[in-house]
């Protein structure tokens, strides 16, 4: 296949930047000045020499045709990924002013591309046999899983005891006990190899300081944690789908072994959340034919950007495989059949009433679910006291925004885009309210990122 594809927009390129500083540095390099011998090939390779502070220019090459998103190589010492040179080169290429002409790649770029393609080929041919050999001795794997299950069981039992103690003494005492108590319990859960329990326990620690109404929130979360413990301890009696959900909520590794589903997947939103240890990137996709919404997760070590980057508004012709568990939307990206391409495709929407019902229904499969992805059709952002809501244009109902969403700059892009008129909004709808992630103007026009 020839993969020149349509050129990306500058916004789509900038969405690849690992952080704001790179975005700025990259956009400064997105002009012809420092570049020489820049070019692009019909196979989706873009290359160029960028003059830096040293005497030798940096060699930058980007492979945009690759299945797993663009790949970069640059001779600069930066540990940012992609580095500002790769971003600048892509911006130059996206800029359409003829700065990057078509041509054949120079040797240094060719070598890298060849090497990559070769490795990809090997991986593909070695794929099926490789995965089974990775499993190693099935008997040893089973024993390992059993040992881990025992430790999780011990952890869940201990956590049940702590929750019971807490409720016996009263939540009011938790307010005085402070953060330390929960940190220690969370550490115990990490020892028990139940990272899902550990992060929920850590969340509990922050609730007593979360403002008015904290006892309600704390009781809710304690109860759901209790429910998860009980789900684990009684997992033999659960239906298979729910048991898988419990395992994934506990934090046991699963593999995306669902049947691959090929579709034209529209990138609805991409956003990162970070804590001290890890940057988590969430990418929401919507399949045009299957009408399914799926979530891709990728991780980067603290301060590093996760590798997978898919600009909002592109579609990719690709296969996704679902992770196990009832009501789980997480999937893994399988083979991609063409590079991501711009599209006018939009997800179908619903009313606010349907969105609320969708969340309620989803809790049947996964009672620990905080929110579900939905697209709202014809909603108007409206101020509501100190916060905001998305009001149906044609009905007297509305979904309030979450407190965090109402405090983000994206809110104002949404309000400006709407100007009091209906817009289409994709976001996450849950018990805390609605978090808008992407918006489309009513009739036509490109999606606007809100996160």
């Amino acid at each position: 296949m020839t993969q020149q594809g349509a050129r990306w927009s500058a916004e789509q390129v900038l969405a690849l930047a690992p952080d704001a500083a790179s975005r700025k540095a990259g956009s400064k390099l997105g002009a012809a000045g420092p570049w020489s011998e820049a070019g692009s090939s019909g196979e989706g390779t873009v290359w160029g020499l960028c003059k830096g502070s040293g005497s030798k220019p940096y060699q930058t090459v980007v492979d945009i045709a690759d299945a797993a998103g663009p790949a970069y190589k640059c001779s600069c010492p930066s540990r940012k990924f992609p580095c500002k040179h790769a971003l600048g080169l892509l911006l130059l290429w996206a800029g359409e002013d003829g700065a990057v002409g078509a041509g054949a790649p120079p040797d240094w770029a060719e070598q890298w591309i060849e090497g990559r393609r070769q490795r990809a080929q090997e991986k593909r041919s070695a794929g099926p046999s490789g995965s089974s050999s990775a499993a190693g001795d099935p008997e040893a794997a089973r024993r390992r899983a059993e040992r881990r299950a025992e430790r999780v069981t011990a952890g869940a039992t201990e956590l049940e005891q702590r929750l019971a103690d807490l409720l016996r003494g009263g939540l009011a005492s938790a307010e005085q006990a402070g953060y330390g108590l929960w940190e220690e319990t969370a550490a115990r859960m990490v020892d028990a190899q139940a990272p899902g329990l550990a992060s929920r326990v850590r969340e509990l620690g922050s609730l007593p300081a979360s403002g008015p109404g904290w006892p309600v929130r704390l009781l809710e979360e304690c109860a759901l944690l209790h429910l998860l413990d009980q789900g684990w301890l009684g997992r033999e009696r659960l239906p298979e789908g729910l048991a898988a959900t419990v395992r994934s909520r506990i934090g046991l590794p699963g593999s995306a072994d669902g049947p691959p589903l090929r579709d034209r997947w529209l990138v609805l939103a991409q956003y990162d959340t970070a804590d001290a240890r890890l940057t988590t990137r969430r990418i929401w996709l919507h399949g045009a034919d299957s009408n399914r919404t799926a979530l891709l997760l990728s991780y980067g070590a603290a301060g590093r950007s996760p590798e997978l980057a898919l600009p909002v508004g592109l579609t990719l012709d690709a296969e996704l495989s679902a992770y196990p568990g009832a009501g789980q939307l997480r999937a893994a990206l399988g083979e991609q059949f063409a590079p991501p391409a711009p599209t006018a495709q939009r997800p179908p929407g619903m009313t606010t009433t349907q969105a609320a019902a969708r969340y309620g229904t989803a809790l049947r499969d996964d009672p620990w679910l905080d929110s579900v992805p939905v697209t709202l059709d014809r909603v108007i952002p409206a101020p509501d006291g100190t916060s905001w809501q998305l009001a149906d244009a044609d009905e007297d109902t509305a979904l309030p925004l979450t407190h965090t969403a109402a405090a983000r700059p994206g809110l104002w892009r949404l309000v400006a885009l709407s100007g009091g008129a209906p817009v289409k909004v994709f976001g996450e709808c849950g018990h805390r309210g609605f978090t808008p992630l992407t918006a489309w103007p009513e009739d036509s026009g490109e999606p606007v990122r809100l996160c």
Partner: protein
Amino acid sequence: MNRTSAPVDAPAPGVWEELVTAALLGTERRTPPGGAAGREAPVALLDAAAVETVRRRAGLRPARAAVRPEPAPEDARAALPAAAARRLALLLADRGGTAGGRRGTAPDLTELLPQWLAAANARGFAAPAHLLPALLDAARGRTDLRPAALAFAGLRAVWLARLNPDWRFALRATPGGGAALPRLEDEEQTRRLWQEGLFAERVALLSALRDRDPAAARELLVTTWQTERAEDRLMFLDSLRTGLGPQDEPFLEQALADRSRNVRATAAELLSALPDSALAARMAVRAGACVSVDRTHAVPTITVQAPRECDASMERDGVVAKAPAGRGERSWWFGQLVEATPLATWSGRLGGRSPGEIVALPVADDWQGELHAAWCRAAVRQRDPDWARALLGAPSAPEAGGPGAVSLAERAKLLGTLDAAERADWVAGFIAAHGLSEAFQLLGVCAVPWAAPLGRSVVDALDIARDAGSYPWSFSGVMGLAERCLDPAEAIHLDGLQAVPDESEHASPGAGGYWAEAFQRLVTTLRLRAAMAEELEG
């Protein structure tokens, strides 16, 4: 969202509240409701709370819609071409600036925002809605951007600013936004706002009206003149500068008798800008008595007899009697008289000579500096290009580059009275003769983009400075101006300057590399500006 009031199979209303109370106090003190057999009280409480939590979440319903905002007014302007919209997003994203860091070869995008906005406004494009927040934030941080940014942002930005207190400045700055000006045709409303409005509103009203109908604005001012405070009178009088004409003379003449000295001085200044006013004629008589041509010398020479006193009538005409420290009072009075005298009177007074001939006459007894400086002020005030040309002299004249009778600041002001092409030619000649070290101020008054001869002489001078072996940051001001003002078409003449030259003996170490970098940045910026202009063409 609303909690459902009572799901069908709810045990009893208030169960959740009882659970919360029991949890808060602890099961040792309060027995929770229900309580399954065989379970410990805390575990039973958690069981019940889990059921209730999921039930409550599953039962969530949308809230009642609040009052929706009025739709923003339609923007009838053409949509921005897609490439231009992306460019604007980039320019706005760069707002932080690169304070402290070395700039390298990358263009300074922040500095290009003003001209991008001017170009977009000139073509009448509408701002993309989703970029309005970034645009308003940029205008909030930089007051110099506000007029162009708000004009471009249009009515939707005003609509938006009503919803966000951070952008309140947009309401103040936009007529019809916050405190709406009445339609100026409506005399009754105009009069009411004039009488009852706040000071800022009244100034805005007066200048708006003065723009439309100078006489009406003056008449409005006269209605309340006597009762205004002195500071306010001064501000209001100042707004008469726009559209100043002979019809204003009686009012200004009356203001010469004002109680406040500042008001009197401003009135006199305005009158002296009207060459046919009675004040100008009185000043001409006074100044004429001080200046004459002495034909007894071999070369006709101007002699100056400065006034011996500053009498009451002079003070009434705005002459400030007390000289600033360090200046002789007689020369101080003399300067003020000449400054306020119509320039046209000098030709008759000095033997029918042209301005050029008059300026060329020698002046006796060291009076030349005082006399020429006063003529400069008069030429600027009366916007007289003939006199300005005569006083500027030839750009290549040796005294033009150094401290002469006319300073650089005065030259910059004199240049302002010439048309753009003549101004550019003069500055080009100046740079060719004197180099760049004194040119910054003069370049600042030239029209953008620079005319071809001016641009070339700046580039040549930079090239010469490089060859002379100095560092480029000695010229960073001119470089920055060149990046913003040079015609992008000039980029082709700069190609040869981007290479790192071989280091010569007399050059400062490493200077060649820095120069190459500075020229690369210049070329990059010019290309970027050309691309920006092309994108806006669509």
